């Protein structure tokens, strides 16, 4: 791979791409100049990732052209795009977990390969060089599965830079990062613009404001806005994105001390690696309140949610739900008792991707008399249920017979939310409910959670977004290393206090 010529200007003209049943990109045109950062924003399913996959040579456009420095180019494979200096960091990292960082980079660095001989030394040297030049620290000999998400992100960046990228495409680079990692990444990217152009996709308008020079907004596959970032406030951009004003709702109800309905006492639970992920945790959720659980991910949030829902065995301590001891009861028993669950991993735990939307909507209730005559499903009722939930939860899909997995992230989340809330749970455990979800869907999900609270449900809201926790919670508990460090009322809580507690500093 020879070093690509500098990209002074990249121009997309009239790009159109269809998938079965969906027009993903509709006559999209945009340009990026050298040293410029273009933010590409839009709701889930607006066609941003598809457009960037076309630019990276992964998808072929049905119509339209790409031109670099005024010369038309065609990318049939990702190799073609790399050869012209375009590199993409995908939202789901493109790394092989059981290989080292060096091996992962070597996969794409063909000039270091001799016949039958893999020159890992040269690759390693190149990694060190790039990592030092761009101040992206990484251990080239570590296996990818050993690295944190933030470190994997850096590996992706280094990999792309090692291939000689002049224009970086970043697809939601911060969606899986903690707040600290996000700030760190933004800083590094800012420094890199001295030499590179960047197109980045994001839902977080704060980041868009901070990092980008220009912003292009996609809606339903078409560009609805393209202009300078500094001329617009985040609220204006949000309105352009959804086509209406967006107001994230706030919990303005009074703190009502209802009875405790979901309690954890001295809970000890092992994590996947065998250590105690929960180490004597105490927590109670009352009826009619939202209890926010703040904390840096990996401090026991997932294990807590799984222990409460019966998915993970409890070593010692008790789980009480509606005043009954439910420790180590099966998930079925917890569901039957009225516990709702919005899991962290929506693609694998939240839905069955190959099942249709309407099937996914009755996953917990299909054996009930409403949806079946003992052994035969009432297909008509299942379809009616899906149509009514699709309308009331604003689920955007071509049909309720479409596969659940073919929906965008925000709409999958709405399917899960619809299924769980339609069951009117006494208590709901909601884990990262708006991770990777656009503003419009976020507003909707928040208002639904608040509505459930008003109806008397108790909600445990696990999130990394302080904004979300502070907007919605009545009380906020901070989890650190498997214990609750402190519980604050929403009046006491400030960003600073929470930030310190999340870092493990209790006064």
């Amino acid at each position: 791979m020879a070093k690509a010529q500098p990209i002074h200007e990249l121009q997309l003209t009239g790009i159109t791409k269809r998938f079965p049943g969906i027009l993903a990109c509709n006559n999209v045109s945009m340009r990026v100049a050298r040293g410029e950062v273009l933010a590409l924003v839009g709701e889930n399913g607006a066609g941003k990732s598809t457009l960037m996959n076309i630019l990276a040579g992964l998808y072929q456009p049905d119509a339209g052209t790409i031109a670099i420095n005024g010369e038309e180019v065609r990318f049939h494979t990702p190799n073609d795009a790399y050869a012209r200096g375009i590199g993409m960091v995908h939202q789901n990292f493109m790394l092989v977990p059981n290989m080292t960082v060096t091996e992962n980079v070597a996969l794409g660095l063909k000039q270091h390969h001799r016949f039958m001989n893999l020159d890992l030394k040269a690759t390693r040297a190149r990694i060190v060089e790039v990592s030092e030049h761009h101040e992206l620290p990484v251990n080239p000999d570590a296996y990818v599965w050993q690295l944190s998400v933030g470190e994997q992100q850096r590996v992706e960046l280094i990999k792309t830079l090692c291939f000689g990228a002049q224009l970086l495409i970043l697809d939601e680079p911060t969606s899986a990062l903690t707040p600290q990692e996000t700030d760190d990444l933004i800083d590094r990217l800012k420094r890199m613009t001295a030499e590179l152009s960047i197109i980045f996709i994001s839902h977080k308008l704060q980041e868009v404001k901070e990092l980008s020079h220009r912003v292009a907004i996609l809606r339903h596959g078409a560009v609805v806005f393209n202009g300078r970032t500094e001329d617009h406030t985040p609220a204006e951009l949000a309105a352009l994105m959804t086509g209406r004003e967006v107001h994230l709702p706030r919990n303005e109800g009074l703190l009502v001390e209802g009875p405790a309905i979901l309690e954890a006492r001295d809970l000890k639970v092992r994590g996947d690696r065998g250590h105690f992920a929960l180490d004597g945790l105490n927590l109670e959720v009352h009826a009619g309140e939202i209890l926010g659980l703040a904390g840096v991910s990996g401090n026991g949030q997932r294990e807590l949610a799984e222990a409460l829902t019966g998915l993970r065995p409890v070593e010692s301590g008790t789980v009480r739900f509606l005043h009954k001891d439910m420790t180590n009861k099966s998930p079925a028993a917890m569901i039957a008792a009225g516990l709702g669950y919005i899991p962290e991993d929506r693609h694998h735990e939240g839905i069955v991707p190959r099942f249709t939307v309407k099937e996914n909507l009755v996953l917990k209730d299909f054996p009930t008399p409403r949806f079946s005559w003992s052994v035969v499903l009432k297909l008509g009722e299942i379809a009616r249920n899906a149509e009514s939930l699709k309308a009331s939860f604003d689920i955007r899909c071509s049909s309720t017979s479409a596969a659940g997995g073919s929906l965008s992230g925000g709409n999958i989340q709405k399917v899960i939310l619809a299924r769980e809330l339609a069951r009117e749970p006494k208590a709901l455990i909601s884990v990262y409910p708006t991770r990777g979800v656009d503003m419009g869907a976020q507003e909707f999900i928040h208002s639904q959670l608040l509505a459930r609270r008003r109806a008397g449900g108790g909600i445990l809201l696990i999130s990394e977004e302080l904004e979300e926790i502070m907007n919605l919670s009545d009380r906020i508990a901070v989890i650190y290393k498997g214990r609750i460090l402190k519980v604050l009322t929403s009046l006491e809580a400030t960003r600073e206090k929470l930030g310190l507690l999340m870092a493990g500093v209790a006064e």
Partner: protein
Amino acid sequence: MTHDLVYNILSLGVPFSVALLLASLGEMFNQRAGVFNLGCEGIMCMGAFLGFLPAFFLKTGPLAPYGIVLGFAVAAAAGVAMGLLFALVTVTFRAEQGIAGIGLQMMGWGVAGTLFRHFVGGVTGVEGLASWPLPGLSRIPFLGGILFNHNPMVYIAFLMVPASWYLLFKTPWGLKVRAAGTEPRAADSMGINVNRVRYQALMLGGAMAGLGGAYLSLCQAKMFADDLVAGRGFIAVALVYFGRWSPLGVLGGALLFSLAQSLQLAIQVAGIKFPYEFAVMLPYVLVILVLSLARKARMRGPTHLGVPFNREMRY
């Protein structure tokens, strides 16, 4: 007496492992690239028959020594062709791999048997490959006879173990194979043609299964019969799991199985009172036991095993 028994079991077990070892190393490449080829048995049947055929025809002529070499070459070529066929069906047409594999197994078994009846008819022996003791090494007491007093294919098969390791972990192609089987989307995004790599791996795997089959007819049994392969192709697939997709692990599995087999023979020959059926069962029971106990550490294996690659699939 015990000394002799142990010696016999070991020196018989080592050459028994060759057919399994070759086929299993080939299957390891298939699976590392993400393709599960249950048709290994069928390829071995074809390899066994087509390897036998030249040796059978040239048996009496002056070309007899070349018959065996030609036999191995034909068997490997047939394996490549069957690997290609399997790749066409499972990689290009994305057919269900398990079902396609059963199809390939039935096809290999049926075609080999039919051709055998047509060209050969009854059971006939061939000369086979002679022993080739390694000078010096074969005179080491005890070990010399066990390790260095075999036909050349035994040495070749054992050299394939480090060669496979080098190929898999130290060459660009091996890197591509491992990526294609574990994270094909990542490989694709880095400009690796995942399907081409899978085709190549299946051709290599086919060639090795073909050689494994030919070893059975040319070196081990020195004849061909319908049931010559007798499930070794399936055992070879199981050994890949047992060996956690590493060449050394596969070697260990092949040796364990073949030693159990020669132990069973030794028990019979020694006339020890032990039900014959149980003795025959022994190696198979061993594989089932080992497979059900060795379920941990999936991390190292190809996580996309059995999943056809489709770049534009949306989930």
